[in-house]
C-alpha cells in the first residue's frame, strides 16, 4: 500500500497527460495467482494493444482495472486517482468504459434497453442515431431480446453500449472475436473515429492484423507479465520478433 501511495504522489508532478498507469499489479482468482507484476502506462488519446497468447492474462488485466477480480495488489492510477481501494462501481465514474470478452448482453432487456443501460459518466458520448447508423443490424433488431442476437450481433451491441456513456478511457476485450470481416473493418473505422475524439483506448486483441494499423504502442503479455513494449514506429523492424513471441 505504502508503495501505492508513493506512486500516487508521483503522478501529480508527472505530466497530467497520463491517463492510466499500472505498476506492479498482481491479481488473483481465489488461490490462483494470475498477474505477476504488470506495468503499463497509457497517455491521453493513445491507443495501445495488449497482445499475447490465450491465457496470458490480458482479459484479467482489464478486469483488474475494473476491480472485477478476486484480489489485487500494486497500483492502478486512472487520471491521477489511485483506484486500488475503490469500490467497483466508482471506477467507471472516473470515465472508464469496459467491453467484456464474454460480451455480457442482458437477456431480460431488449437491444435498445441494453444500449441505454449504462449510466452516462461524462458528456460527449454518441447518441442513439449515431450508433444505429454505425451498426444497422442493431437498429433492425432493436426491439428483440438482447441474447437472442447472434454471437456477432451481441459483440456489436456490447461495443456500441459503452460508446454512449461518454467514457474517455475504453477497455476493449477481443471486440473482433467471432465477427465477420466486414464488421471488423467497420469497427476499425469506429476506433479511428474514437481516437479522433481524443479517447484513450486499451485494446486486447487476438487479431493482430486488425490491431496493428490502429495502435500507437503494443504491450506483449506472457504468463501475467508485460514482456515487451513495441511502439508503432519500431513495429516493422521487430515484426519477426513479435511473431515468434505470439507464436504466429
Amino acid at each position, binding site marked *: 500500500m505504502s508503495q501505492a501511495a508513493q506512486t500516487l504522489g508521483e503522478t501529480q508532478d508527472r505530466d497530467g497527460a497520463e491517463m492510466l498507469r499500472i505498476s506492479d499489479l498482481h491479481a488473483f482468482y481465489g488461490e490462483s495467482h494470475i498477474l505477476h507484476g504488470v506495468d503499463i502506462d497509457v497517455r491521453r488519446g493513445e491507443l495501445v494493444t495488449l497482445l499475447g497468447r490465450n491465457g496470458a492474462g490480458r482479459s484479467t488485466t482489464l478486469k483488474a482495472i475494473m476491480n472485477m477480480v478476486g484480489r489485487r495488489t500494486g497500483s492502478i492510477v486512472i487520471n491521477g486517482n489511485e483506484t486500488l481501494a475503490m469500490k*467497483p462501481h466508482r471506477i467507471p465514474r472516473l470515465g472508464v468504459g*469496459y467491453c*467484456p470478452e464474454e460480451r455480457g448482453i442482458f437477456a*431480460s432487456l431488449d437491444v435498445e*434497453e441494453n444500449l*441505454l*443501460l449504462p*449510466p452516462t459518466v461524462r458528456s460527449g458520448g454518441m447518441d442513439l442515431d449515431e450508433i444505429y447508423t454505425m451498426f444497422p443490424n442493431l437498429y433492425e433488431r432493436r426491439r428483440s431480446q438482447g441474447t437472442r442476437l447472434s454471437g456477432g450481433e451481441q459483440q456489436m451491441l456490447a461495443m456500441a453500449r459503452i460508446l454512449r*456513456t461518454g467514457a474517455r478511457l475504453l477497455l476493449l476485450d477481443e471486440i473482433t472475436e467471432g465477427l465477420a470481416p466486414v464488421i471488423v473493418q467497420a469497427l476499425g473505422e469506429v476506433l479511428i473515429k474514437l481516437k479522433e475524439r481524443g479517447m484513450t483506448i486499451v485494446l486486447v486483441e487476438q487479431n493482430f492484423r486488425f490491431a496493428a494499423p490502429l495502435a500507437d504502442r503494443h504491450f506483449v503479455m506472457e504468463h501475467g507479465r508485460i514482456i515487451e513494449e513495441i511502439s508503432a514506429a519500431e513495429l516493422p523492424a521487430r515484426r519477426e520478433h513479435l511473431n515468434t513471441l505470439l507464436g504466429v
Partner: protein
Amino acid sequence: MTMIFGVPLAVFMGQLMLGLINGAFYALLSLGLAVIFGLLKIINFAHGAQYMLGAFAAMLALEYLGINYWAALLLVPLVVGTFGAVLERLILRRIAHLDHLYGLLLTYGLALIFEGTLINIFGVSGSSYPTPEALQGGLNLGFMFLPTYRAWVLVAALVVCGGTWFIIERTRLGAYLRAGTENPALMQAFGVNVPQLITLTYGFGVALAAFAGVLAAPLYPVSPTMGSSLLIVVFAVVVIGGMGSILGAILTGLAMGLIEGLTKVYYPEAANTVIFLVMILVLLLRPSGLFGKEA
C-alpha cells in the same frame, strides 16, 4: 332463481367475490416473492414470516403506541421493509455469491427463528386486530353481504400490485433491476451501485409481504404461525405462474383465488389441495409455468 351447477347464482357470485379477495393475498405475496427472486435469485422462504411480522407489527403498534390502522398501513411496511433491508445487508449478502439454494435454506432458517421467537413471546392462539371504524359494517351487493373491509382489501391489493408492475416493467429503475439480476458484476463495471440496489429490492419485497400482513390483520387471528402454511400455497401459485413475469405472478394469484373459491362450494373437501392439483396439471402440460420464460 337461476342456478349454476345446482348453486343459486347469488351464492355463486358471492363465492367468486370471496375467491377474488383471497386471490388478492396470493397475488401480493407471490408478487413480493417474484420481485425478490428477480434480483437476488433466491426464493424468500421467510416471506410468510415477514407477512406475519407485518400483522404483528400492526397489532403491537396499535396496542402499545396507539398507532391506528391507516398509519400502520404506511408505517409497518416501511419498518418491516427496513428490517428486511438490514437482514439483507448483514446476512443474505454474505451468501449472494453462492448457489441460490443456500438463499432458500438461509431464509428458511430465518423463518424458523422469527416464528419460534414470537411463539415464545405471544403464544400461538393469536389475538385479534379490530377492523378500523371507517371500514366496519358491510355492503349489500345484492347477491351477497360483503364486509366493507374485504372490499377494501381487494382494492388496496390490486392498486399496490399494479404500481409494482409499472415500476419494474416500465421505468429505468426497473431496467436496472432486470439487468442487475443477470450480471451484477457488469452493472458495477458500468457504474451502478448494485449492492445498494439489491438491499433496496429485498427491502421492497419484504415491505410487500408486510403490507399484506397489515391487510390481513383484521381478517384473521394475528398469530405467529399465520404465514408458514400460507406460504407453501403461494409457492404452488408461483410454480403455476412461473417466475417469468411480474404480471404473471399477479394474474395467477387472482386466478388461483377464484379456483379455490369455487372448490369451496362444489367440493369443499378438496379446497386445501385444489391449487396443488392445478400445479400438477400445469407441470404436466407446461413445465415452465403459465407465464414462465425459462425452459
